[in-house]
């Protein structure tokens, strides 16, 4: 297990390095200079290029790039917040994005599980049909359509919620303004958890041990929650963890709609402003999150279900 984890961590670093190299190549091979302002005098441009070693051969530049990163120096922002180290810019944006994403994920779990149990218990009855209809709706319709709908109806028409995110952290208005973005983000994951759990439970409910549980006098609800759920909850972890990446992607748009100053908005801004060092840092952040997610999922297979052997040689 430890050997496998170390191997995987090594592979993760390797992937990150490949991503970094490709990012470096893409940025340096792009047509035109990083400094596009043609009004600047040529001498100044030359000085700036020399300052950032842009006039050296590509392979030398790459060597500087790797050296700097190995030393933990990721460069400074060149357009969004000039001369501020990129990780400092990024750190200021990460908490709100993370809060938004984690809250959506945690909220979607209990609701999704409850709806899944209900749908499975009342299989092919009206409750099940209603839940299944909602699932199709929430899985299909993109989160930004829901966000727009919620923003116009609940926030603008009825005035129940603030239209955009409140920038001053803490206090009731702040949490109140988080409700709509979190709802918009959570609808999809709720539907996915529900659909998964319903499918799993319906399969389990007809098995022998459930019959036994009923025979010894448990109610349908008790038997489902205490016996059937046990089997379905563990594999559930493997669909929930990857959902984090998809919520993180979805929050790019939700952050824009509700004017939340998170990582998503920063990525778009830095792309449009040609702030390349910052873009690279954000890319590394996204890659790291997604790679770690995959790693956690793969490791959890072995932890959750001991029958699955991870790693090891094929002779074991």
């Amino acid at each position, binding site marked *: 297990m430890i050997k496998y984890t170390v191997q995987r961590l090594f592979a993760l670093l390797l*992937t990150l390095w490949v*991503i970094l190299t490709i990012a470096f190549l893409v*940025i340096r091979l792009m047509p035109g200079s990083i400094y596009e302002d043609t009004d600047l005098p040529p001498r100044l441009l030359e000085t700036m290029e020399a300052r950032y070693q842009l006039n050296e051969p590509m392979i030398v530049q790459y060597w500087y790039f790797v050296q700097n990163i190995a030393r933990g120096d990721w460069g400074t922002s060149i357009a969004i917040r000039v001369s501020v180290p990129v990780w400092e810019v990024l750190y200021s944006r990460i908490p709100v994005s993370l809060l938004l994403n984690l809250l959506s994920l945690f909220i979607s779990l209990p609701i999704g599980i409850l709806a899944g149990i209900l749908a499975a218990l009342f299989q092919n009855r009206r409750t099940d049909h209603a839940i299944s209809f909602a699932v199709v709706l929430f899985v299909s*319709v993109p989160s930004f359509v829901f966000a727009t709908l919620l*923003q116009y109806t609940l926030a603008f028409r009825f005035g129940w919620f603030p239209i955009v995110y409140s920038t001053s952290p803490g206090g009731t208005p702040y949490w109140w303004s988080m409700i709509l973005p979190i709802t918009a983000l959570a609808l999809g994951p709720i539907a996915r958890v529900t659909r998964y759990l319903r499918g799993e439970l319906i399969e389990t409910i007809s098995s022998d041990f459930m019959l036994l549980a009923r025979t010894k006098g448990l109610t349908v609800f008790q038997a489902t929650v205490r016996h059937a759920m046990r089997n379905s909850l563990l594999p559930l972890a493997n669909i929930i963890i990857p959902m984090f990446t998809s919520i993180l992607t979805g929050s790019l748009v939700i952050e824009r709609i509700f004017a939340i100053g998170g990582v998503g908005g920063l*990525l778009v801004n830095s792309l449009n402003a040609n702030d390349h060092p910052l*873009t690279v840092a954000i*890319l590394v952040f*996204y890659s790291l999150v997604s*790679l770690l997610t995959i790693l956690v999922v793969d490791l959890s297979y072995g932890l959750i279900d001991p029958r699955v052997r991870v790693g090891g040689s094929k002779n074991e």
Partner: protein
Amino acid sequence: MSSDKNSPDVYDEQYSADDFEFIHADDVLADEDFKDPAVGYFQDAFNRFKENRASVAASWIILIIFFMAIFGPEMNDFGFNEQNPDLRNMPPRIEWLRPIGIATGNRQLERRRVEFFEDEERYPAGSIIRVRNRLTVNNVEIADVLVDYYAYRGVEHSFWFGTDYLGRDYWTRLWRGSRVSLAIAIISVLTNLLIGIVYGAAAGYYGGTADMILMRICEVIEAFPRVVIVTLFILFFGTGLFSIIMSLVVSGWIGTARLVRAQFYRFKLREFVLAARTMGVRDSVIMFRHIFPNSVGPIITRTMFAVPLAIFTESFLAYIGLGLQAPEPTIGVLLSDAQAVLLNYPYQSLFPAIVISLLMISFNLFANGLRDALDPTMRGVK
């Protein structure tokens, strides 16, 4: 013999040769001829698909949207980029829906001076429908007034879906946008399909080292998060059709490749493949004529699930400002432009939102129906 009951002589007494006759003597003996027409795989699947009412309804909605995407933009005389400064942000108006209060073409104008309400120059006859919230500020009487916006602006033509901030007909732009979005989705999905089938077939059929190398390549590509791929493409090639389609293609084919590979592993050691090989059939023919047709069902299902995903990704990119360049609309571009004026002109968000939601729901339902219908284990199950 004590008992000769069973001897032939006994029978001879009971039955004479005349009691027997030859049957089938003149008949041609053959298996029963099936009167019902043969039901092939796709016919069978289609019959099962028809049973699923939600999927049938979904396929009709998809057909209608396709029809509108193809013919909708040419249905009136406005071009998708025909700007008209006099017709900015006209509300939608459909004559035959006016009596029930939908798409009336009315708009509330806020805080207007009451003294001008009689002025025919400013408010043409019949344009004022209702006046409310009268109040006096600094000795000037003002009020909110609901006007027939078309009469107010002196516009003859009824724009069914209204116009946008440059006075472009929204009907034309909406269907043109649907056309571009669907085109992006279909091109990228077909490309993914082609790459995935060839790649997966090679990996699955040859197996061994080739398979190992091909699958490691897949894993490396898969490790790149989608946002990162899209960002890198847009950094290098700029925003545009090519970047969007490529960012959908780069990692999109891997799922299909894995599926095809698994199917090839399932079928490549079957007897019919051995028979074909014994007869000296070439590898490429065995792969695509003998093995591949067995995996058509799951591939079709997967492709249908990929279409809504591609439509979603395109809109998503447009939303974060990485979409197609103006003036070409896509559903995502329309949604993202409309988001900026959501509170003033909500109808501009409403129409593309309805189209994309319908498309996503319909394609998912359609694919669900197809999955159940094409699955051979469902054969004969009602």
